[in-house]
């Protein structure tokens, strides 16, 4: 006997003067292999075509569909209903600007981050199209990719105590981004350069160590290790510059 599922969904359309923030309930019969991707599209197509939410790849790769599912920031596309109780509450991710209903603006938030941490390889070398590529040990490449896997869904930011208190906090995603360049031999920035970016409360010293970021990361990024590594590295950098002054 299929379960009847009740979805309590946050509704608000900021572009409609008559709309006010409220919760609305929808009931659906559960089907095999049902995910929240299937649920939300069915509600939109069968019950309320104005319902706003974001999906793109629907395969856990692109990071579009972050939302709070029964209190926990998650990717909706790979959340299976069989793992949830009969009553399910869906809220938009906090911290990010609300677009409407379950849709938030992660794009602007991350774009600002790229500028803040200068999220690109800093090198004085010019590309030579006639030369062979510079060599790199495969292990180094794999270590970089391990940190490059972040899909910027925003779940870690939504679950972060500091991010809720300080709008300028870089969050685990931003700090991990810096860590990615720090271990990349092609990036010529020094530890001092990185210290200028994250050696403060907006960066690594703002982290309170609550580590919900690691708990909710849908890509299982090693955020706890990464934050610990950066804190140590930046702490040592601070001490070094203290003694060399």
């Amino acid at each position, binding site marked *: 006997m299929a379960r009847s599922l009740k979805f309590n969904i946050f509704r608000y359309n900021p572009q409609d003067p008559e709309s006010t923030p409220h919760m609305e309930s929808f009931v659906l019969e559960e089907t095999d292999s049902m995910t929240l991707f299937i649920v939300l599209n069915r509600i939109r197509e069968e019950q309320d*075509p104005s319902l706003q939410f974001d999906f793109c790849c629907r395969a856990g*790769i692109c990071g579009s569909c972050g939302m709070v599912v029964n209190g926990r920031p998650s990717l909706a596309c790979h959340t299976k209903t069989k793992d949830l109780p009969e009553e399910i509450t869906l809220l938009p991710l906090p911290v990010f600007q609300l677009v409407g209903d379950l849709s938030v603006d*992660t794009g602007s938030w991350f774009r600002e981050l790229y500028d803040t941490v200068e999220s690109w*390889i800093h090198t004085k070398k010019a590309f030579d199209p006639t030369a062979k590529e510079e*060599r790199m040990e495969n292990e180094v490449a794999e270590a970089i990719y391990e940190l490059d896997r972040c899909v910027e869904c925003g779940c870690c930011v939504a679950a972060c105590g500091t991010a809720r208190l300080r709008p300028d906090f870089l969050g685990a995603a931003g700090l991990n981004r810096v860590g990615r360049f720090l271990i990349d031999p092609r990036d010529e920035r020094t530890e001092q350069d990185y210290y200028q970016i994250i050696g403060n409360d907006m960066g690594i010293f703002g982290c309170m160590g609550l580590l919900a970021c690691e708990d909710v990361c849908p890509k299982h990024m090693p955020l706890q290790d990464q934050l610990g590594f950066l804190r140590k590295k930046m702490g040592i950098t601070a001490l070094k510059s203290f003694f060399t002054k």
Partner: protein
Amino acid sequence: MQTIYTDVLVIGAGLAGERAAIEAAQAGFSAICLSLVPARRSHSSAAMGGMQAALGNCDKGAGDCPDVHFADTVKGSDWGCDQEVARLFADNAPIEMRQLAHWGVPWNRVVPGKSMYFKGGKQFEKEEKEENRGLITARDFGGTAKWRTCYVSDGTGHSVLFTVDNVCAQLGVEVHDKTEAVALIQDGQTCFGAVARCLRTGELRVYLARATTIATGGFGRIYPCTTNAVICDGGGHIPAINTGVVPMGNMEAVQFHPTGIVPTDILVTEGCRGDGGTLLDVNEERFMNIYEPEKQELASRDVVSRWMTHHIRQGKGVKSPYGEHLWLDIRHLGEKHITGKLREVYEICTSFLGVDPIHQLIPVRPTHHYSMGGVRTNKDGAAYGLKGLFSVGEAACWDMHGFNRLGGNSLAETVVAGGIVGKKIAEFLQGAEVTFNSAVIDAEVKKQHERIGNIISCKAGTENVYKVKKAMQDALHKGANIFRSEAGLTECVATLQETLERARKVGLKSNGKGVNPELSAALKIEGQVKMGLMVAYGALMRTESRGSHNREDFTARNDRDWLKRTLAYWKSDADTLPTLNYEAATNIFHIPPGDRGYGKSEIIKADDVKTTDKG
């Protein structure tokens, strides 16, 4: 009304669009990319497998060069590609891989020493040379003579897209995400930019540009079962089609991927088979080794998909509530390989299917995957029909893929073509003076405001957009799939024509205020049905089988009559069918039409094809 001016407007912010924008920015021009989603969520990110480029660094790639890559690409296309373009691509691909390495892509590298690999379920040994230590390595993909596919674990698209978007941020290429182009601004001669709808507020905006580039990827969502992301809905093609003067090339050339998972049609990468995975039937027995003794599971995608469908029709499919399927077996690759090099596959199976591929078989079926067709351009990426309009990537029919593209060639095309076309755009801008006519701009804005108003007020009718969409998708699934016939395609065209009438009567159920998703769907539906008609009618008229286009009533590849490309126009709004013209598939033959070496080899020969020595 907000009006934004830029030198280059790129519609789409995936790999092709951003790569082209980088070239323009490096030449000193301003560039803005419009995107439905933040750039890094573009569908390029989902391409897991890799990019083909003849670097020849790894042991199994030894002796590779652009000539061999070119030959594989032409064979793969079933001689439907433009050989000049395929050559341009193969020659530039190695340089582009190195460019990406310079920008920060963590390509997997050659590790010297002996290691084991699987082919067709059997284990073999290879040895990488010390002298190649640390150079960019490659994996095996279908339809290639050498191991040529450069990769970053199984997140190649993701990693390259992040890198390219980083370079965009560095160079000041703006990305206006949550923005949807709804119409081109043009006077029948020249393109001046686009009218776009902001998906944060629902308001219209005008983008004026000296060069406009369509780079919105594929249009798989006109089919019900596709590996494509939900944003791959033809949103960039429709404004071009609606001009009446820009043709779509080879829309009937649609690729089906052998391994979409059942039921959600999420793609598992060809890397599974490249690394030694096998296909099994209901008796858990292999069959590709019987149909294709040489290439086996690694024949090109059209061939594997066709044999899978054939095998299911022979009663060898596995029955399930979601229809029949076959099995993909990667168990023998072992836990380390599956959770390492194929981690994304492991995650997809466990998260979306509840299947553990280390111990269990993966249910797969051929599903819509790639659109070889699109906005027809010349080799510079300039669209036919409008000055100042370009197109690049899957959205375009640049035409290096012809009637079937090889795995690893499309992701490579995005950046290689992006670089080439981007340079051509920059060259075009050096000499381009554009006079913007406010009457043309105002008329287009007024037209779009009226169109939106009419859909909201249900002026033409109250057809439900989602029902109309389903009718379109079902018609294409039924009639324009892997195997095609005159009867099936005729019925498909007729159904789509009825659907077109309904699409013109769509009205909203909701109020249409702000970022209304029903309105977004409604604005596209008529254009999508037109695209469906281009696919089905083009397929009906093409009385041969070539690459992914398979006619059960015309089984031979007919080089005598069909060594040509379809150009589909939608000349007038009131039309109910596209107007089809044809042009030569290629003006230069480096390789004359021949046998692919896999798949069937029934060919009606052309008498008068002359080979040109390669330049």
